[in-house]
């Protein structure tokens, strides 16, 4: 039990970038903000890796999906 908890905290120790920078609103067209949150293949980086809190991860996912719709971000990277 004790071990399990220790393992989990390893991940949750990461801080949410949006919270720490006090970003109130994520604009979907702010590609400079969103680009670091997609992988090289164009996939959304999961929060367990990025360290984003659930609220901001959700907002960010919505923003990325909108940006993809209007060709500001890729769905997947072309080869």
């Amino acid at each position, binding site marked *: 039990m004790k071990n399990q908890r220790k393992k989990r905290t390893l991940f949750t120790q990461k801080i949410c970038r949006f919270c720490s920078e006090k970003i109130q*609103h994520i604009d979907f*067209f*702010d*590609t*400079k903000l969103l680009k670091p949150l997609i992988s090289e293949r164009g996939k959304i980086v999961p929060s367990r890796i990025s360290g984003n809190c659930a609220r901001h991860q959700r907002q960010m996912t919505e923003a990325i999906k909108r940006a993809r719709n209007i060709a*500001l*971000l890729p769905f997947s990277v072309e080869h």
Partner: protein
Amino acid sequence: MRNYQSILILKPDLDEAQVDQSVEKITAIINKFGGSVLKLDKWGKKRLAYRVRKNKFGYYLNVYHTCEPREVPKLEKEYQLYELIIKYLVIRLEESDIERVMSQEPVESVIKDDEGDEGNNSSESSDDDE
């Protein structure tokens, strides 16, 4: 009446006059359905993340406007029919969104972040020749 944001991608090879002409046309479309333009930003020519109707670049316009909710499908239809628009996205905004938008400067990163280094597209655009 509600607030909306329309992002429009125009053909990339338009000159200044054609861009102004399409801004007028888009304003007219919005007015046609009883709406009015609240704010319009020209983001300019940007590299598209994927090809849109064979275009690798597009000229972005960002328009905040009002519209009667039931007229939105007709508005979108007009966007579709306008030959200089290659892609569009209409988003409904909440009252808090529009207040924030009207008080803030246009997001600079979207304009600066053009990545469309005109220099390196010469090699890539060769397959676009007609």
